[in-house]
């Protein structure tokens, strides 16, 4: 997967500025950065949900930013996306949500029994056995996040790429640890290429093979998790240490 010179603006707001990114196959690439810096926007370019104002996006050597919706279908069926807001379908039960990508993949017919088995297995993996017939509205935020993750991995065969948008947001530390281990397992055992957008530095250290930080529309660091933790660049230092920027601090005066 590759982004070449990708720029994107929304009105006067420049979100991505001439981004170059080559994603390594079967590795986990973590993109960190402050809220609102364009991490989710970047992720959406990879699966063609957004088109760049300038630049090119390649998946498996094929340029996708100029393809129509129908031409993108076979590419999207190899990529799973865990949305920040989970994006579960309210009208379906949990097991119907998890089995949806398999049911809709008409290129590879999967039997109902197999869909049910795989969906239940994936729910078990994320610690939600017994939740099959509940609806998203009945779940907590953390439970919805886990259903979204189960939906992303419930494909036969497994997806080649999984895009994770804040996969541990809203989860307690123990559940977050389970999710981190699952992400790592998918990469090591099934060779899934992972692109993870997160604020969670602990998660970054556990799942990341490569870490990049987005600041003002550009990458200001690119290295292993250990290299990023030792980086001398001021914005990176403050981010990994959890310290606010000087311009963020507001003095209240009476």
């Amino acid at each position, binding site marked *: 997967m590759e982004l070449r010179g990708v720029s994107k603006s929304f009105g006067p707001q420049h979100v991505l500025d001439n981004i170059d990114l080559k994603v390594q196959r079967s590795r986990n690439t973590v993109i960190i950065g402050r809220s609102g810096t364009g991490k989710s926007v970047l992720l959406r370019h990879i699966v063609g949900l957004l088109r760049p104002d300038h630049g090119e996006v390649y998946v498996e050597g094929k340029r996708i930013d100029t393809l129509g919706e129908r031409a993108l279908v076979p590419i*999207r069926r190899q990529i799973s996306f865990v*949305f920040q*807001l989970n994006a*579960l*379908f309210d009208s379906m039960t949990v097991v119907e949500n998890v089995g949806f990508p398999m049911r809709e993949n008409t290129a590879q017919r999967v039997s109902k029994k197999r869909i049910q088995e795989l969906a239940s297995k994936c729910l078990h993996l994320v610690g939600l056995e017994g939740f099959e017939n509940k609806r998203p509205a009945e779940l907590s935020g953390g439970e919805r996040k886990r259903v979204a993750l189960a939906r992303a991995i419930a494909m036969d065969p497994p997806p080649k790429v999984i895009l994770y948008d804040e996969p541990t947001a809203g989860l307690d530390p123990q559940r977050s640890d389970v999710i981190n281990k699952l992400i790592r397992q998918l990469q090591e055992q099934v060779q899934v290429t992972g692109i993870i957008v997160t604020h969670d530095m602990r998660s970054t250290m556990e799942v990341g093979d490569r870490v990049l930080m987005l600041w003002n529309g550009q990458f200001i660091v690119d290295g292993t998790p250990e290299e990023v933790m030792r980086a001398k660049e001021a914005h990176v230092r403050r981010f990994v240490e959890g310290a606010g920027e000087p311009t963020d601090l507001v003095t209240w005066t009476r």
Partner: protein
Amino acid sequence: MPRNNVLAQSVAAIGSGATHGLTHFGRFWAFTAYAASFIPLELITLRGWRRFLPQCYSIGTRSTPVIMLTGMFIGMVLIVQGWAQFDAAGFTDRLGAIVITSVCLELGPVLAGVMLAGRAGGALTAELGTMNVTEQLLALRSMGADPIRYLVTPRFLACVVLAPLLTCYADLMGSLGAFLVFVAVYGGEAEPFWFYVRETVQLWDLGSGLAKSVFFGGAIGLVSCYNGFHCKPGAQGVGQACTQSFVVSFILILVLDLFLGFLLNGLYEVWFGFRPLI
């Protein structure tokens, strides 16, 4: 503020409004054509029917009671309003025929359309708008499913197919309501009532009303789905889209009714000549 600035800003505002309106107009027709292009595919696949039939239930079956009630009361009210005048002229026997012709030609399809726009149209916009703001439409796209084929085409088809059926219910209840008031309240006689109804109300009247309702149903389905897909973010955006759906659908029903009225009346006169009702 200098006069030039006010004038320039007014012109700019008109231009911006016109551009915005034309953009939406073009986008709406592209949306319509795209949704309609999936109709044959949806009808020949089992999955398509599995998406279509639940929409028939929620749009059609669940709207039936309120549309029947509306039709019934319209028929009743028209008899109430017309009785005194027709009685004074000595034509009470023909009142039922005039009322039922009006219900079949105009009031049945229009009021069924308005009730459908309010009940089902608002619900469609709310459902799709909520899916839009919670990224469910993006999730569908990311999984290789076409949101328009998956969500819009079944709903549009259900509105087009069911609007005439609901209009039939409105016409039926309008007729029965008119008869009930004619006989039970004003003491009219049943036999002349139905005699003149048989003599006056033609298949053309019923057919015209049903033909109009097809267009009304299509307009309601497309406008509601389009507004849901293009609503602004947040609960306020969804709410505004629902209101807009009803208002635009209502205006479209009135405009379509006018033009279809001209067309159908013109066709009748060309093919059959003038028809006196009294």
